[in-house]
Every structure is written in structure tokens, then in C-alpha cells.
């Protein structure tokens, strides 16, 4: 499996057979703190890659840098053959790299269906002059709405179609944000903790949907803490710690790496926490 994706042995920064994104020397410093220091990383095209690591490892900062929401101190990255360093965030999204946010940004003051419609790109009606000529954009709007309704159904949000997004629960907002990101037909969809707050039973069906993305040719890069999910769907795992990439490889290999277990996975991954011994603290009274 590893040699379908990587050229040579799986190691941090290894080359990929068909990379969609190649980043070099990406550094981001906040005062004295180096939040991100990625020498070289390549994301395989058409595969599902998981980005894991402890909190504060720099995963979200790295996402922000790649998608233009933050400026690095140095670094370049090529997406699908085009250099995206320094490109503003909205243009990055138009090029096909669409991201979701760790702290959900469902637009509360819009209805669920309007949120979805907003996600579609190249909308004629969004131009100032064109907006007055309703016949010009009406047909496209109907198309967009149909697509939105399909996605809402798959994410089980169709009943909430006319509700304001602000009335959805936290997990439902996460789902809305993911569905909305898909409206833009991304080439690479970057999901920042997409399952955080989502009910475990629903998570399973959504994972199937993410696998469908892969069969449609979309590349997926996601940050997650749920190791069962990572094991279940990812083709490749990249581990970040303290701003650097410390391990890469197929899930089984990475997750049995002792260093990764110590820093991140924990030794109790498959044990019942109710049976683990805890130290008895004297009562506070």
C-alpha cells in the first residue's frame, strides 16, 4: 500500500507518486514561538490523508497558511501545478482548495439552504450588474438549489432546510459547514476536525460519504482526533508535533510507532478507562 502512494520508504517529507500539493520550507513564527516549521510535505492526489497530532502542534496554523488565511514567514507551496504562496484566501478557494474551520463558521443569520447556496462558485447572480437581471441567474439558482438539497439529504439536514443556521446544534453546524464546502466542487477539501461534536452513529455514515468523495476524484486532507475514524478511512497519515512533521505512512504503521503512541495516542487506546487504576485523592473538605 505504501508504495502506491509514496516513492520509497514512508518517512517524514517523503515524495509521493502523484502529489496534488507540495509544500517547502513553510515557517510561521509568533514572536519567539515557532508554530509551524515544515521542511517538505507532499499530499497524495485522490487519496484520503489524515493530519494528526497533539493540540498546539500547528495543524490548524498549517491549514491557515496553505489556504491564505495567514501569512508565513517563509515558504512556498504548489497546488495542482500552480504556486499558491501569497495568494489571498478567496482566490485559493476558487482554485479548488476549500477548507472548513475548527471553530465552526456556520452563518447563523442565514437559513440552512441559503448557507448551502452561498457555497456554490461562479454564480452569475453574485455580480453587481447581473443581480438585477433575474432571468440571467434564475436557472443557475435552481440548479444550485437542487444540488444543495441533495447534499443536505446526505448529511441528514434536510429537515432543517428553512431554519436559521443559528438554531442548529454544534454538531449539526459542523455538518452544514462540511456540506457547504462541498458545494464548491473542490479538488482538495481540507476538513479541520470535521467529526468533533458529531454523534458517533452519524459519524459512520459520514465516513462513507467521505469515501465517496475519493471515488469521485476529490482529494481529502483532514485533521482529526478520533483514531477509529482515522484508521477506518485514511490511506495515509501525517503526524505533526511542535510544528514539525514527525511521522508519515499508512495508518497501521504510524499508529504502532512507539513515539507516536507516547506523544499522542496514549497507551490506553483500547482499554476500558473504568478499569484503569487512578490515584486516590483525599477528600477536599
Amino acid at each position, binding site marked *: 500500500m505504501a508504495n502506491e502512494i509514496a516513492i520509497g520508504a514512508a518517512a517524514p517529507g517523503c515524495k509521493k507518486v502523484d502529489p496534488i500539493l507540495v509544500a517547502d520550507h513553510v515557517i510561521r513564527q509568533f514572536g519567539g514561538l515557532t508554530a509551524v516549521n515544515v521542511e517538505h510535505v507532499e499530499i497524495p492526489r485522490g487519496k484520503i490523508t489524515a493530519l494528526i497530532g497533539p493540540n498546539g502542534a500547528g495543524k490548524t496554523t498549517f491549514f491557515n497558511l496553505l489556504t491564505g488565511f495567514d501569512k508565513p514567514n517563509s515558504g512556498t507551496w504548489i497546488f495542482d501545478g500552480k504556486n499558491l504562496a501569497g495568494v489571498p484566501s478567496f482566490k485559493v478557494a476558487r482554485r479548488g482548495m476549500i477548507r472548513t474551520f475548527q471553530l465552526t463558521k456556520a452563518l447563523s443569520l442565514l437559513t440552512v439552504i441559503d448557507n448551502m447556496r452561498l457555497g456554490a462558485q461562479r454564480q452569475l447572480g453574485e455580480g453587481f450588474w447581473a443581480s438585477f437581471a433575474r432571468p440571467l441567474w434564475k436557472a443557475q439558482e435552481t440548479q444550485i438549489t437542487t444540488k444543495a438539497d441533495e447534499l443536505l439529504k446526505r448529511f441528514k439536514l434536510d429537515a432543517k432546510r428553512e431554519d436559521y443556521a443559528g438554531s442548529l446544534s454544534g454538531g449539526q453546524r459542523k455538518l452544514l459547514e462540511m456540506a457547504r464546502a462541498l458545494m464548491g466542487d473542490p479538488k482538495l477539501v481540507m476538513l479541520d476536525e470535521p467529526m468533533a461534536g458529531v454523534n458517533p452513529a452519524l459519524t459512520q455514515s459520514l465516513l462513507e460519504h467521505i469515501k465517496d468523495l475519493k471515488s469521485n476524484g476529490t482529494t481529502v486532507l483532514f485533521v482529526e*482526533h478520533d483514531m477509529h475514524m482515522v484508521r477506518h478511512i485514511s490511506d495515509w497519515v501525517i503526524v505533526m508535533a511542535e510544528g514539525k512533521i514527525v511521522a508519515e505512512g499508512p495508518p497501521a504503521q504510524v499508529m504502532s510507532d512507539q513515539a507516536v503512541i507516547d506523544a499522542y495516542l496514549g497507551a490506553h487506546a483500547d482499554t476500558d478507562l*473504568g478499569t484503569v487504576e487512578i490515584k486516590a485523592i483525599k477528600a477536599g473538605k
Partner: protein
Amino acid sequence: MTNQTPVVEALDLHAGYLPGINILNGCSLVANQGELIGIIGPNGAGKSTLLKSIFGQVNIRSGHVKLNGEDITNLKANKLVEKGVAFVPQTNNVFPSLTIQENLEMGVFQNPKTFDERFDFVTSIFPALGERRAQKAGSLSGGERQMVAMGRALMIDPSVLLLDEPSAGLSPVRQDEAFLRVREVNAAGVTVIMVEQNARRCLQICDRAYVLDQGTDAHTGTGRELLNDPKMVELYLGNLAEL
């Protein structure tokens, strides 16, 4: 089964944020002294809403909440803190510009003289807080902030600790630590009611749990009972762990 008055008793609550829209539709919960109670369930079921109604942050339209037999329905949060109820929200739960020690000091502002004693207690559970007391809370990672938030709640020597998704956003090893810490706090005599998205872990450590669905307590039982119930697995837990 104890025949003491329950520490927290919520009876048939109907509550919501917006006028006319109820999130809780007849929800009940009982927590006895020393128990670790879990609240799990699908998105939008009302888990956080239940916790917040107990803490007076959501308007209860009908039903009662009792603390040791005393009616505390819709009582404001500051009054509840005086009565020994501590709440740790999921986000925005520390003061980022204050140090860890200052955050903990904020915890006892109603009774500042008890600081030293409570600080010793809290740092015995979370030694890292003691070691890094001068560090600004804003520079901490998510899991570390959770620790500070929980530590601050413990500073008032609460009889009841309400936790809103303490493992949210944490890496697996930190999640496991968080759950073990909750067990330690509970073992020290604090009654704990926790809302959790990580249902599997929550059920592993709690005494009893309530499964909320569409605003009511649809199922209840001991942690073990629910973990091993095939219906629970199908509806709420998923079986990814076994795949």
C-alpha cells in the same frame, strides 16, 4: 441505591433559548451523592441545554430543578456558585490574559481566604497547574486550558461539578487523561454530571448515564448496561471501535 435526597434532581424540564421553541421536552435527571453521571446522545438532543438549564443559563419554562431538596429552578449562576455548584463550559472557559494562578484565584473570589487550601487540593489532582502557575492561560494548548478550567471550578470546593464536553477537541492521549482526571475528582467526593460526545469513554467511567434524544431522557442505565446494549450501539454509539 441510596435513600438520601439526591444532590441534583431535574424533573420534567421544558426549556429553550428562543421564545416559543423548546429544546428540552420533558427531560428528567437524578444525581445522587458521589455519583458520576453521564449525558450522551445525538446532536441537537439537548445535552448541553440540559446542563445549562441546571445552571440557570437557559430559561426553564416548566419543570423543576432541586439541589439537595432545595428548589433552584432558574436561579442565576452566581447564586448557584454560592451554593456549591460549579460549571465548566466547553469553550471560553479560561481568562487568556491572566496566569494560571490568577485564573484559579478568580475561582475563589467569593471566598478569597480559602485560596491556599484549595490551591493545594487542585494541584494535587493537576500537578502541572502548580508547576506552571505563572504561565499565561492564553498560551496554553486546548487540553491544558481544559485543565485550568476544571481546576478553577474545583477551587470553590463544589458539591456538584457540571462538565460540558471536557474531552472536546483533545488528542486521544489528552482525552484519556481528561477522563481519568474526572474519575479522580469524583473519587475525592465531588458529584459529577458530564455531557459528552465521546460516548464510549463516558460510559466506561460513569456510574449511571442518560441518553438524550429530541429533548427527553430516552434511555437510562448504568454505564456498563448501556455500553453493552446492542440497541444503544446501533442508535448512538456506532461500532467503529470494533471494526
